[in-house]
C-alpha cells in the first residue's frame, strides 16, 4: 500500500468526521466526532514526521480539552429547544459564505507556486522530541515563559469566575 493512499484515506476520514461534528444533533455525539477528528489530525502529524506534535495533540486536545467539554455538557442538563429555529436558509447562507472563503483560500494556494521542500537544508528529524525541546528552550525561551504566565492568569480567572455569586457579593459588601 502506497503512502499517498494512506494520505487520501486519512483526509477523507478527517473531512467526514469534521462534517459530522457540525451536522450531528446531540452535543455528546459532536464531541466524540471531534475526538475522532483530532486522532486523524494526529495521524497526519505522524505522516509528516512531527511526532512530538502528534503526542501533544492526543494528550492535550483529545485528553484534556475534550474531557473538559464532556464534563461541562454532562454537568449542564441539555434542553432540546436550543436548536428550534434552524431553517434551511441558515444552512444555505452559511455554506455559500464558507464556500466562498474556501474558494478564496484555494485560489490563493494556487497562485503562490510553492516549491516542494527546502533543498539546501534538509533536516527531517526536527519534529522529534529532542529537536523540538532544544529549539523551544533556546530560541523560543521567552514565549515559553510567557505561556506559563498565561496559564497562571487563566487559572486565576477560572477560579474567580466559578466562585459562588452570593458569597462574592457579601464579601464585597462586608468589605465596603
Amino acid at each position, binding site marked *: 500500500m502506497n503512502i499517498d493512499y494512506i494520505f487520501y484515506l486519512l483526509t477523507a476520514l*478527517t473531512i467526514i468526521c469534521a462534517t459530522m461534528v457540525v451536522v450531528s444533533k446531540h452535543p455528546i455525539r459532536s464531541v466524540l466526532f471531534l475526538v475522532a477528528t483530532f486522532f486523524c489530525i494526529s495521524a497526519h502529524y505522524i505522516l*509528516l514526521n512531527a511526532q512530538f506534535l502528534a503526542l501533544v495533540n492526543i494528550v492535550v486536545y483529545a485528553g484534556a480539552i475534550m474531557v473538559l467539554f464532556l464534563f461541562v455538557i454532562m454537568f449542564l442538563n*441539555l434542553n432540546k429547544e436550543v436548536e428550534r429555529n434552524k431553517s434551511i436558509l441558515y444552512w444555505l447562507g452559511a455554506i455559500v459564505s*464558507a464556500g466562498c472563503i474556501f474558494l478564496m483560500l484555494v485560489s490563493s494556494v494556487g497562485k503562490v507556486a510553492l516549491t516542494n521542500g527546502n533543498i539546501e537544508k534538509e533536516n527531517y528529524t526536527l519534529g522529534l522530541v529532542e529537536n523540538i525541546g532544544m529549539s*523551544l528552550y533556546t530560541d523560543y525561551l521567552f514565549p515559553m515563559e510567557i505561556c506559563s504566565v498565561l496559564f497562571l492568569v*487563566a487559572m486565576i*480567572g*477560572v477560579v474567580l469566575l466559578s466562585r459562588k455569586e452570593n458569597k462574592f457579593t457579601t464579601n464585597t459588601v462586608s468589605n465596603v
Partner: protein
Amino acid sequence: MYKPDIIQYISLNHYLILGAALFAIGLIGVMVRKNIIIVFMCIELMLNAVNLILAATSTFYSDSGGQVMVFFTMAVAAAEVSVGLAIIVMMYKNIHSLNIDLFNRLKG
C-alpha cells in the same frame, strides 16, 4: 537520515487545501449552530486546521518554527477553553439556556 515518504508523494498544496476545507467546515458550524458548546467546538476545529497547515509547512521547509508555533497555539487553546467553559457555566446558571442568541446579555 530518515526522510518521510510523504514529501515525495504528496505536495504541500494538498495539505493547504485540506486545512482550508477544515477551516471552512468549522466556519459553517460557527455560523449555523445555536448551541454555544458546539460553536466552541467548531472554533477548536478551525484552530486545528491552522495547526495542520503550520506543521505541514514546517516539515516541507525544514524549519522548526512552525511546529513550535503549533505548540504555543495548543497552549493558548487550552487556556482559552478553560476560561470560556467557565464563562458558559456561569451564564447557564444565570439564564438557564445554551442558546447563543441569549448570550448578548454579556455586553458591558
